[in-house]
């Protein structure tokens, strides 16, 4: 029935393609050219003398270290989320107790708490705990702020497991623990990968917690490195864009190979 092409929407999407594609082109082109070339011929021209100096320059100003720190933070945040959220979602979906429904309500309200809102007391708590300027002090709050959305996404996935399977396992005399490991975890793999994508992106792209809770170069994460680079080398635009490109490279590579999983993960962030 709907065979005719949708011209207005098609035009809108082409416009959007230019809006997204052009900046990305300018960025990638700029990273391959010299500062003089960029200043003389403008951002939209084609690069002339190709160079990789903008990338090596970023590494010279510490980006290797920042990468390593960001990887540590991301892996640990995903680890904490994977350790805590599946049992939580299991209880939310299967337990019938009043306490559990209160807990679920608490996490729903938790969706409302923006990181900015708690940053002052977080600074106080982390300093008091002696974790200021320590990657653990970034990992813990970042993971905590991934919990509400992850719980929501995963409990949604677990709800799709058919009740008959639980009944059948009950007949076999399975304990809640056995059901969790043999039924719930294997059958909610889709939801599990979604929460991994979601929390890894949160951790990789996190800015406010590292900004306020770390200080020295040895604990700097990549977003913070980028921010510093910008304040220090603001006029070296090709160098700056080289650093930006480096910071997004890992995510872009994963996106190239696992586009579907990533997009579905992002879709999960928006609720339904």
């Amino acid at each position, binding site marked *: 029935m*709907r065979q005719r092409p*949708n011209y207005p*929407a*098609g035009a809108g*999407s082409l416009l*959007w393609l230019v809006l*997204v594609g052009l900046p990305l082109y300018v960025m990638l082109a*700029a990273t391959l050219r010299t500062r003089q070339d960029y200043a003389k011929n*403008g*951002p*939209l021209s084609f690069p002339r003398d190709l160079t990789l100096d903008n990338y090596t320059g970023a590494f010279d100003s510490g980006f290797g270290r920042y990468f390593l720190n960001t990887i540590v933070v991301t892996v640990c945040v995903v680890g*904490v989320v994977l*350790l805590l*959220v599946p*049992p*939580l979602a*299991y*209880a939310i979906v299967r*337990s*019938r*107790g009043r306490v*559990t429904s209160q807990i679920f309500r*608490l996490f729903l309200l*938790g969706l*409302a*708490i923006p990181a900015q*809102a708690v*940053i*002052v*007391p977080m600074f*106080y*708590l982390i300093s008091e705990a002696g974790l200021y300027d320590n990657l*653990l002090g970034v990992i*813990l709050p970042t993971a905590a702020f991934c*919990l509400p959305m992850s*719980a*929501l*996404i995963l*409990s*949604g996935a677990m*709800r799709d497991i058919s009740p008959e399977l639980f009944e059948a396992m009950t007949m076999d005399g399975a*304990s*809640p623990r056995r*059901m*969790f490991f043999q039924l719930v975890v294997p059958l909610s793999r889709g939801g599990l990968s979604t929460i991994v994508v979601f929390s890894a992106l949160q951790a990789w*792209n*996190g*800015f406010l917690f590292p900004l*306020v809770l770390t200080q020295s170069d040895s604990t700097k994460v990549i*977003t913070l490195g980028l*921010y510093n680079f910008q304040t220090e080398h603001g*006029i070296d635009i090709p160098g700056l864009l080289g650093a930006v490109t480096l910071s997004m490279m890992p995510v872009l590579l994963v*996106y190239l190979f696992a*586009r579907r999983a990533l*997009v579905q993960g*992002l879709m*999960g*962030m*928006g609720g*339904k």
Partner: protein
Amino acid sequence: MTTQTTSAPPAAPVPGKARRAEAPYTARGTRPGFLWALPATLFFALFAIVPLIMVAVLSFMSWNGLGSPRFVGTDNWQRILDDPVMIKSIWLTLLLTALGVALQTPLSIVLGVWAAGHQRNRAVLSAIYFVPLLLSSTAVSVLWRALLDPNFGIPARMTWLFGDGNLFGEQASAIGVLAFVSTWQFTPFHTLIYQGAARAVPQVLYQAAAIDGAGRYRQFFHITLPQLRTSVITSMILMIVGGLTTFETVLILTQGGPGTDTTISAYYMYQKAFKGFDFGAGSAIALCLVLAATVVSLIVVRVSGYDRMRSSTEGVS
């Protein structure tokens, strides 16, 4: 104390008698008790709920970041309510949020409905569309700061369109840049929401409309849009919460300037607390943000049906 919380294994069901009491064997199956939810809940309470309570307490205290906080009553509140920059920051926050909703909503509906269709090049195009969504706000802001640089950026090359090329020098254009950059970054996300919802619209409705002779535009306004109603609300509420808590974009693109012309509340809170070492006033501003976000999210829970336990895979392609 904190490491203990993280390394604790998932709450195992208590063996023996306790388990039977908690997980009664019923016709509908053995069920887990609330202990399974406990580790996550304690962790979340420690790092989100406790600070949330503390922000309320700190808003009545004076603290400069060193030493101990001291109780000062409503002093902080009086100061921020008398502060013209604070009042201005609230208006700016509301303005930027409204601009974001007004720009992103129509754009993401059109793109989302388009992406839900069956065009030939859709897959390739939409792969590029979603790239901004993967980038950190920091990367996006630094990228646009570079592209819009007054001396070397795109506006400096197109003076016929951008005047002197310094978009950050005036309030109107600086606000325009901030609204544009968040639209650039978040439209793909809202497009995803609409794409999922548009796919879920029953095709029968379009078939019936086609038989009645309704054209494409009538179908869009009389079928597609009404069917997207819940998604419009969900997406708008997410935009509002996002708008209230915009931070990196302002910090990196405008530093709140020129003057205080783009100093929105979240940025002002950061400045007060972490630049001015006035953590009491910072907490009071933060508490205002919490209240605003809570009101909006209570609406999201009500309207979107999160609390009615819907399947999250609905509408996922």
